């Protein structure tokens, strides 16, 4: 019996394949098989890759966060919050609206550095546990979440419950006596500004590296 594992010459002429010519190493059968598989692969990728990119596109596309007028500057004081409605997603009517709580910067309690974007403090109602809408309760001077018992103090820092960081905020500015609310940012325990993160993503310690900032929403440098 011939040894079936005997190494054959790589030249088709040596192997006496009909129609072989000098120097040829790839048989026609192998060539046809490989090209059929290649065409099949290319044709499949032609619809798979664009579809995948189409579905994944929004991850890489930065979404606009326009400045929105929320009222006259003298409407707000340091003592308490006033709820205002802004649009955080366009084209979906009521479902795209969100509440922000507004007050004036108070040097007695607000220890974060003062700049042109925090004459007014705009606190997001998005709970930093898993995103339910918190409500400011004036009698308790606290933000309270209806879902799993998250409680935040007057500055939006965690007082109790499962939330992992203080409530998000928005940039504010004053234009012609009117207060405008701009892009969202997240804060860590020291109320230091970070690129916006989703709820449940801690920002203290290694948190900011475990949960990288996303290209889909405006990044602050180095955060």
């Amino acid at each position, binding site marked *: 019996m011939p040894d079936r594992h005997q190494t054959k010459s790589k030249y088709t002429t040596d192997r006496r394949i009909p129609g072989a010519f000098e120097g040829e190493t790839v048989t026609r059968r192998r060539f046809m098989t490989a090209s059929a598989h290649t065409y099949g692969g290319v044709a499949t990728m032609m619809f798979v890759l664009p579809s995948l990119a189409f579905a994944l596109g929004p991850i890489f596309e930065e979404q606009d966060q326009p400045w929105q007028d929320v009222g006259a500057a003298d409407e707000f004081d340091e003592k308490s919050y006033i709820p205002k409605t802004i649009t955080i*997603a366009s084209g979906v009517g009521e479902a795209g609206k969100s509440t922000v709580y507004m007050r004036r910067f108070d040097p007695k309690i607000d220890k974060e550095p003062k700049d042109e974007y925090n004459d007014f403090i705009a606190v997001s109602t998005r709970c930093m546990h898993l995103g339910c809408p918190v409500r400011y309760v004036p009698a308790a001077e606290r933000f309270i979440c209806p879902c799993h018992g998250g409680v935040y103090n007057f500055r939006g820092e965690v007082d109790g419950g499962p939330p992992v960081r203080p409530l998000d905020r928005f940039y504010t500015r004053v234009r012609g006596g009117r207060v405008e609310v701009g892009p969202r940012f997240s804060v860590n325990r020291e109320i230091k500004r970070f690129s916006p993160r989703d709820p449940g993503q801690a920002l203290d310690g290694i948190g900011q590296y475990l949960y990288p900032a996303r290209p889909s929403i405006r990044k602050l440098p180095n955060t």
Partner: protein
Amino acid sequence: MPKLKLPAPPLPDRLNPRPKRPGSTKTKPLAEAGISAIDWVDERTSLSQGARWMMFRKIPKGTNWFYTLGSATLFAFLSQTVTGVFLAMYYRPDAAGGAYESVRYITNEVFLGEFVRGMHKWGSSVMVILIFLHMARTFFFGAYKYPRELNWVIGVALLVLTMAMSFTGYLLPFDQRSYWATIVGVNINGTGPFVGPYLSDFLRAGPEFGATTLARFYAIHMLLIPGILAALIGAHLYLVAKLGTTAPPWIKADDPVQKEEKA
């Protein structure tokens, strides 16, 4: 003369049709027509071979009611498929209010709408309960062992996909409960380190719950996952038929020596 011949059901003698007497060759024309139509297809496809392979399998001694849990899950899936297809005839995935309105319309105005929606809504819970019971059956009977490990693995994929169906379907009524439950669910996905933030952006189609989030969930719920589920259920059943089912663990294999002594 029809060629198709199925094994006779095990009926008591008096219920079995009497054997034909010589000379009375007449068969009912209607039955004849049906059988020859089936024959026509079978001659060109050999489908009856497959049907026989699937249906007339040997099953082990001790097979009991717990073995019906897989088929029960299958019927829950079929019921979800059929009711879901018909719900899609009235449902509108419009986050600006149309989705909620269309579900309200199905529930309050469409003839039997509340019933079909109820079937789908309650059926989803039934399917999840049944899939867990079926999984428990295969676990406690040791049916995941060699050579059925792959069927267990396919089963795990079916379980995860069924959960994904529940998650994506929950958003569709677009009322307060489904909206906030989905926000919470997406944010739970976001707490996975490194990939979490991108995963939740993928689910929402952006950093905020927006205009295309509902459309995305709807497409995943009614096209993507059901297709994969159906294909995997096919593979699951193929393996069940190919490998046969396991006997319950308390059934001992017949000892040929002992058997001979008894005889």
